[in-house]
Every structure is written in structure tokens, then in C-alpha cells.
């Protein structure tokens, strides 16, 4: 049912050779809705209720420039099916997007930090749309019903939004029921490439995205479960190899100026702190470092890169991290956008190192920039005691 871009999918060897040359067509007409008395009608009903709940959910980001952009991009890629698709931006720092049978699409905020540009975003959205256009949900639902011999529950509620947050355990629990099978994923990959290529986006974006995702997962040194999983199921390279074959058929679309940020990148930069604070809170330091490296390569502003590298060091708290954080905060403090927070963190770090005069200066700079900061009482307390 959900979880499309999961690395947990096994892409072993089942590629059908014919598929590469196939041109995909939707299996449902625009504006499709099932009969209410059918099993599909029941599934839709449940999903629609979920969507109703979602509309008053605090976990959704509404009416921002980013959501408008997403809606437009999805609409463009969906073409005749634009009216059937509704996209929701879900506050969730993990890499995911999902498609529901009634045309509800979820995009996680974590996706926005991981796609490098509009092309890569398009690749994910194209893949999701392909699931919809090929009616994968209902097929999967029927298969699950046929094959399940044990008690199983469809549990669509707001909690489902977070189901894949810490993936593995819950994925195993819902195996078979909530996920597209590998043939469907494979088809969605191929159809997704077709969709973005025919809309002027770079079809190779799907490969560059997966390569990055693989690098990010590979950077994970700290957590046993996912690295073991990664070691036993490293089939992203197969996925990449097969995507490359699909891409060959379309050639390259002309790219806009590589050095300037595209509209999507600018929107991400505008929301960067909010997105990145949630990413940092995951405490996945190695992966986040990999992510910031990529952002630096994309050309995201130096202020943000320096500041979040500093945040990573400060919060990781390993040997040498505080020193590194101080150096980076000092650089970030020279930029208007990151000055206030950098000065404040410098103040605290200097106190820890017994550099009281420097701490005082830093706190004073912080309050100079943000005299109404909500923690001004705390800062003033230190300014008094540091005298």
C-alpha cells in the first residue's frame, strides 16, 4: 500500500527483460473512482477518511511556497490526471514519499533535503505517480488478502504517517500488506523514468538520487540494525543498473545553468533551518554529514553549510567536536542569516572552555542582533554572572 522508495526492497534478479522496451500506459481513466460496494470502494473509503483526518493534522505543512511548487510539479507530471492527485507535505525527516489508491500523495520533508534538484524531485514524484497510474495499491491489497493466513490489520490513521519513521521493525510487522511488491516497484521505476523524460526532466536524475541515498546509508556507522540490513540487502546497485537501461532510451534533456540554484533549490534554501533542525534531531551524525557535503556541492549558501556542520559537531559531543564546532560557528557568525544562533552557541561553548570574556562578547552579540530573544533572561543571567 505504501512505502515506495524503501531501500528495504529487494531488487535481486527478477527484472523482466521485455520491460526495458515497454511503453507504459495508465490502467485507469482520469477521474477514476471505484464502486462503493466493491472491495476497492472499501479501501478507498478508508483512505479517504484518513485523508480527511490528515487535513486537520498538525503533521502537514500547508500553503507555503514549497507546497505550491510541489503541487504544480505533480500536476505537470500527472498531465490529464492532475485533478486526481493531491499532494501533502508531511513533517517527517526521513527519506520517503508514498502514494495512496485514491490519488493522495505524501511527500516527506526529509525528501526535500535529499533530492539535489527539481529533476531528482521529479524522479521521485514520477515513480509515485506510476504506482497510481498502474493501480498498484488495489492489486497489492488483493494479493495481501489472498496470501495472508494470519490475522492482519489495515490500520490507516494518523499514526500511519510515522510508520516508516524508524522503518525496520514496523516494516517487518506490516510485510506484504503495506508495501508494493518488487515487480511493482520495478515497473514504477521504469514508468517513472518515462514520465520525467517526457516532461523535459533529466531521466538520469533517478540514478544520481539513488547513488546519493546509497552513499548516505553507507555512511551509517553507528547503528547496527540498519547497517546489517544494508550489508545483507545491498541491491540498490541493481536498481541503479536497471534504471540506467531505461534512461538510455530517452537521452539527455537540456539542463539549465548548472551553477545557479533552480527554483526548487531556492525554496529548500528558504526553509532550510526548519528542515535541517529536524534532520539533526535524528542524531544520525554520519548520514547528516554526508547530506551536508552534498548540499555544499549543490551550492547551498555557505552560511547554512558552516552553521549546520557546527551544529553536528556540537551535538555529537565526541572528542574534538567542540573545538571544530567553535571554528565553524565563528565562520557562520559572519553571515547575517546564521549570526544570531552562532553567537549564542559560541557563548555557551566558550563558557565550557573557561573563556568567560569571549563568552560575554558572544552573548552580547547575540542579544544585540535579537534583543527580544525568548531566552534573553538566560543570556542576561550569564552576562551578570560572567562579570
Amino acid at each position, binding site marked *: 500500500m505504501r512505502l515506495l522508495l524503501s531501500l528495504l526492497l529487494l531488487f535481486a534478479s527478477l527484472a523482466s527483460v521485455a520491460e526495458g522496451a515497454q511503453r507504459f500506459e495508465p490502467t485507469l481513466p482520469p477521474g477514476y473512482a471505484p464502486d462503493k460496494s466493491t472491495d476497492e470502494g472499501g479501501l478507498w473509503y478508508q483512505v479517504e477518511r484518513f485523508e480527511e483526518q490528515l487535513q486537520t493534522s*498538525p503533521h502537514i505543512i500547508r500553503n507555503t511556497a514549497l507546497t505550491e511548487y510541489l503541487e504544480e510539479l505533480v500536476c505537470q507530471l500527472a498531465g490529464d490526471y492532475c485533478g486526481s492527485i493531491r499532494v501533502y507535505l508531511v513533517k517527517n525527516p526521513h527519506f520517503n514519499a508514498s502514494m495512496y489508491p485514491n490519488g493522495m500523495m505524501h511527500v516527506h520533508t526529509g525528501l526535500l533535503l535529499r533530492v539535489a534538484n527539481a529533476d531528482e524531485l521529479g524522479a521521485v514524484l514520477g515513480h509515485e505517480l506510476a504506482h497510481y497510474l498502474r493501480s498498484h495499491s488495489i492489486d497489492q491489497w488483493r494479493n495481501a488478502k489472498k496470501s495472508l493466513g494470519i490475522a492482519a490489520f489495515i490500520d490507516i490513521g494518523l499514526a500511519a504517517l510515522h510508520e516508516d519513521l524508524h522503518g525496520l521493525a514496523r516494516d517487518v510487522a506490516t510485510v506484504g500488506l503495506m508495501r508494493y511488491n518488487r515487480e511493482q516497484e520495478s515497473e514504477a521505476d521504469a514508468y517513472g523514468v518515462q514520465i520525467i523524460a517526457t516532461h523535459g526532466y533529466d531521466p538520469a536524475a533517478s540514478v544520481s538520487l539513488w547513488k546519493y541515498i546509497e552513499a548516505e546509508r553507507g555512511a551509517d556507522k553507528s547503528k547496527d540494525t540498519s547497517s546489517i540490513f544494508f550489508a545483507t540487502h545491498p541491491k540498490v546497485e541493481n536498481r541503479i543498473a536497471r534504471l540506467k537501461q531505461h534512461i538510455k532510451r530517452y537521452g539527455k534533456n537540456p539542463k539549465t545553468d548548472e551553477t545557479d540554484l533552480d527554483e526548487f533549490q531556492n525554496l529548500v534554501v528558504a526553509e532550510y533551518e526548519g528542515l535541517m533542525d529536524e534532520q539533526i534531531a535524528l542524531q544520525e551524525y554520519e548520514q547528516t554529514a554526508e547530506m551536508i557535503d552534498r548540499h555544499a556541492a549543490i551550492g547551498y549558501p555557505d552560511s547554512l553549510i558552516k552553521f549546520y556542520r557546527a551544529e553536528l559537531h556540537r551535538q555529537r559531543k565526541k572528542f574534538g567536536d567542540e573545538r571544530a564546532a567553535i571554528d565553524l560557528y565563528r565562520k557562520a557568525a559572519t553571515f547575517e542569516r546564521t549570526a544570531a544562533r552562532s553567537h549564542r552557541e559560541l557563548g555557551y561553548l566558550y563558557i565550557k572552555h573557561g573563556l568567560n570574556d569571549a563568552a560575554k562578547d558572544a552573548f552580547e552579540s547575540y542579544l544585540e542582533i535579537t534583543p527580544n530573544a525568548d531566552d534573553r533572561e538566560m543570556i542576561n*543571567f550569564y552576562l551578570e554572572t560572567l562579570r
Partner: protein
Amino acid sequence: MKKISILALACMLAACAHYSLAPEGAHTVQGMSFVSTTDWNKSSLRSGAKSEVWTKDGERLNQLTFIGGIKDGQTIFTSRSKELPMPEFRANMLPNELMELVVTSLKNSSGGELVIDATNLRPQRLQGSIGFRFDMSYYDSNGLARRADCIMVKKDDRLNLIIFSAAGMHYYPKEAAEVDSIFSSLQL
């Protein structure tokens, strides 16, 4: 036979809290001494080895959680997930880090799903020590807006804290003055 197994299971599942009266007046909970001006219900549930939970109207609506004597290297709540380890308390932590410690611990205790807005970090003068206090607001997984007030005191390199959390509507403001008075009376 069937009925017996159902009965047995149902009994095991009756894992709810039970309550005893915590009357108004002086208390010492997890090493923290304070004075309450109204009666509370002490719950049998706890969030970790060094904790105690009080409530007025049931934990869904409001709860006062006491956590005392956390040593360097220990976590505020019991770690349950390798994927989302609980951050450890360090004796040299400054108030900004203590606030982050509490926020991350709460977030991770919910599987990482809470988006907690922490504000108004400030010192609070107590008898014989300085505490640090801040506010939180967030939505629980059902979409109910909740607010929380947290006070943290370090004593002999150990962290002690009290968190009051409640539904933002009615149940938080209802107890705000009582909670403020409990926090202000805190002594270690």
C-alpha cells in the same frame, strides 16, 4: 478452556495505572522537596527507574513527572531503540544542552515523531540553588495540542527535573498556577 485463556489474557492486559492520594502539603519525591497547594493523584506508572508520575485528571489530560538523581552518563528515560538512542546526561552540561537533552529524550520516547517547540529558557532562583526552566508545545499523535513546563536543577553533578504536561486547552492553564508554586518551592 477457551474462556479461561481469554480470561487469563484479559487479566494480564489490565495493565493500567492505579492511584493513591498525594495530599496538599510538603512532599519529597525522588530527592526533590516541594510543597503542593492542592491534592494530586500519584500514579503507579513511571517513565524510568528514577521517576514518579502525578496527575489531576488522568495522564491523558495532565501529568506531573518527577525524575531525580540522574548521574553523568545516564539517560532521563530508559532507552528502548537502537535506532533512536536516548541522549545521555553529562555533568558539565549547560542549560541550553539540558533543554536539548529533555527535548530529544521526549522526542525519542515517542519514536521521534513529536515536533517539540521549546522556548523561554530562563533561570529560576530556588532556595539554595539555581534551576533552569523552559516551556514546550507540541501535538501528540492524535493531533491534540499539548503544552509543557519543565524545571531542571543540577545538584552534586546529578540532574533533577519535573515536567508538567497537559492538553493545551483548559487542562494546562487550569494547573499553571499550582505548578508554578510547586516549582518555586523546590528544594534539593
